[in-house]
């Protein structure tokens, strides 16, 4: 295996052109936090690391726009933005190690997605180095722009199978003046759904709402409000009033890391998507899986219908069976289940992505137009793309 560490887009282009001429299969590494996502790429000849491409290329605070190289970390971006009381409104786990390129490639998001969206909603421009070394740009550096096809969105979540993300441009948001977190403890899944509905009905606008499953099989719902102090104050007392009506208890703030636990701990990590009101069904479907894992945890982004489960597998057969059952139940009702990380024994039995999507024929054409020889992260993505 050859490793390359280009220092800028020109070097990245030269490296990619070299792999093209040599017909080498290539993988990309940013901060390494998501290397287990998807199927392991097959027979890779070269890896390209983005670590040296870590500059903030442009930052116009008055325009609230930042253009960043792929290897810069999220923490680095946030530190630069904070100086101007701004932020990139993305909060995936591991900000110290998560890189911009990796975040785009994996379609990153954290709890704040409830208010600000995922990386696809905040990216406004991208520079891609294609498999043949050609450098292509899409989007631009203004927030509003419909010129040409939306290459930035095509890059989001493409997992290094279409090209190398060299840099990306984002819209920023004002750093909130104030932040308050309210936790409602020991809720049933049904209570979580109805409390979230009441919050919406009351026109409260939390920036995140995450339900964490406890060992009692109940949920702690962590609701956060951010913004100007007066608005946060009003909403915090508003949500307390709602809870009083629903006879629920409330306690002080939980540290951020407990929100990320289900996304970072354990040798087996999965994520799933369904409609937000389906939490009770999801809870029932996941029960056997969580029971089969040691130190299991489950976090549910309650307004989005996205969940994360993790733990350590000892009884592989039980885990595999539980995963397969959970996936088919989810898929049957229009949802999905994807493996973020798993031991080899599990991977052998359970595909990382599940059934091929209905639009697979178009996806395959997209892959082959960009990478006709299937050299970029071969086999890692959906359906072996």
């Amino acid at each position, binding site marked *: 295996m050859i490793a390359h560490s280009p220092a800028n887009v020109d070097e990245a282009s030269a490296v990619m052109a070299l792999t093209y001429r040599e017909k080498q299969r290539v993988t990309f590494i940013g901060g390494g936090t998501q290397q287990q996502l998807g199927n392991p790429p097959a027979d890779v000849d070269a890896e390209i690391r983005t670590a040296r491409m870590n500059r903030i290329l442009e930052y*116009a605070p*008055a*325009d609230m*726009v930042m253009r960043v190289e792929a290897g810069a970390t999220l923490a680095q971006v946030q530190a630069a933005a904070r100086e101007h009381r701004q932020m990139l409104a993305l909060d995936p786990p591991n900000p110290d190690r998560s890189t911009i390129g990796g975040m785009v490639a994996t*379609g990153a998001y954290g709890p704040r997605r409830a208010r600000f*969206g995922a990386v696809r909603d905040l990216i406004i421009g991208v520079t891609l180095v294609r498999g043949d070394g050609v450098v*292509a*740009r*899409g989007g*631009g*550096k*203004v*927030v*509003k*722009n*419909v*010129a*040409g*096809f*939306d*290459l930035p*969105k*095509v890059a989001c979540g*493409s997992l290094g199978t279409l090209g190398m993300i060299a840099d990306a441009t984002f819209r920023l948001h*004002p*750093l909130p*003046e104030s932040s308050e977190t309210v936790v409602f403890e020991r809720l049933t899944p049904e209570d979580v759904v109805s409390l979230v*509905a009441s919050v919406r009905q009351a*026109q409260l*606008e939390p920036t995140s709402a995450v339900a964490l499953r406890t060992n009692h099989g109940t949920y702690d719902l962590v609701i956060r409000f951010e*913004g*100007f102090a*007066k*608005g*946060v*104050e*009003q*909403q915090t007392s508003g949500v307390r009033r709602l809870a009083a009506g629903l006879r629920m208890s409330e306690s002080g703030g939980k540290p951020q890391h407990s929100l990320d636990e289900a996304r970072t701990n354990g040798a087996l990590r999965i994520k799933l*998507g369904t*409609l*937000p*009101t389906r939490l009770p069904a999801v809870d029932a479907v996941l029960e056997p899986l969580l029971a089969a894992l040691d130190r299991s945890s489950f976090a549910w982004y309650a307004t989005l219908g*996205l969940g994360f489960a993790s733990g350590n597998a000892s009884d592989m057969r039980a885990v595999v069976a539980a995963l397969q059952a959970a996936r088919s139940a989810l898929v049957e009702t*229009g949802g*999905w289940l994807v493996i973020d990380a798993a031991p080899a024994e599990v991977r052998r039995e359970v595909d990382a*992505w*599940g059934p091929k*999507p*209905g*639009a697979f024929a*178009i996806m*395959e*054409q*997209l892959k*082959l*137009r*960009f990478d006709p020889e299937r050299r970029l992260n071969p086999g890692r*993505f*959906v*359906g072996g793309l």
Partner: protein
Amino acid sequence: MTSASIDSKLIARFSAIVGDEQCIWKPEQIQTYECDALTSFHAKPGLVVLPRSTEEVVKVVKLAREAGLPIVPRGSGTGLSGGALPVAGCVLLGLSRMKRILEVDLENQWVRVEPGVINLEITKRIAPHGYYYAPDPSSQQVCTIGGNVAENSGGAHCLKYGFTTNHVLGARIVLGDGSIVDLGGPVLDPPGYDLRGALVGSEGTLCIVTEVVLRILRKPEATRTFFATFPSTTEAGNAVSFIIAAGILPAAIEMMDRLAIVAIKAATGVDWPDVGAALLMDVDGPAAEVEHTAAEATELARKAGAIEIRIPRDAAERETMWRGRKSAFAAVGRISPNYVVQDGVIPRSEIARVLREIERLSNESGLRIANVFHAGDGNLHPLVLYDAAVPGQEALAENIAGEILKICVRSGGSITGEHGVGADKAAYMADMFSEEDLATMNMVRCSFDPEMRFNPGKVFPTPRLCGDKPGKYVAHATEIAGLAGRG
């Protein structure tokens, strides 16, 4: 050439699919469809079909393919870039009869609609329950969701809430071979490439959309509107900068210059004073936050040099203010026989400088230019006024509009913020993107529509082909029936 390539037998076969009433081919009836709201471009379609279901769309697409005809999709025809401009002799596929709202799920905040549904109809349907659909192009009373998806439409309130692409969760599409494919749906992040991201804003060049799943939002608790007048656009621009720098994200900030204000007053009868510039702004959200941001923004507008700040007394007065803004293009149409409108975008911090350059162009050419635009995101809408009856004026106006686009690109912006490239701005794409960029975008197009069946000649500055379909052989693109005329 009503039907040079479409004979009566073929017309009969299209009629058999959609019914005689929905198949339009007589010269006097077809005229309506020769252009969209960009009326300086027009071309005659071979025939117009108005299907009522996905199944009918599939049959129309298959028959057009068999006959080797290009297909141009169309909604209400309100587009300002010639996106729905026919290719001469094409099958113009109008989706306005597919206008059912199919499903509403308030609890999970989505709706499923057909592409011919009018934008505002969605909000009307769900407003009684306290929900709305956020993207609000000025034409929202008449434009269709299908057209919004094609153009990635924005509107005044996309500053805070995003564009059509941020609100489309899924779509059912018909490809060039007649196959039906579902992209995404109400559940977020289905595994695979973000094809709905590629679809939204592709200007009808990939496929025909026959259903769309849209995100809907709960109405904010409070909305505060204010209207502030300024001596000139410089002070108004400063006010915008101060407000943004204070960490306030308004739902909308719209700017109008002196000429735009004059036109709007004449057309709508709003009692706005004669001033150099005005801002119309909405802040919304939880009540206490809105109280705070409205007070702060008002104070900052004063600090920037506002002459007068008006706060609407009630919802009706607020409506009137916004109607004034949204009718700006039509209003300008009443003070000038003709106008060209452009849609360039610049970084917000460049607004004052670029407006001065536009003023210089106006002074040099002698043509009046009105400015009404989305100041919060730097999306300009300069309206270059001219009289087509005066020889040379139309060409002069087009030239100035083109110059303005080049200024936008040089300032680090874009040639279009929400109207789309269409036929109008295809020639300017090369100012913004390299040949490699465009070739890469074409790869996306080819993965959906390798035969270039849909809306050929739009978006890209020069015609392109797809080459063989990777993986297996497919017949080459059919010759396009002809190019659009101008005049």
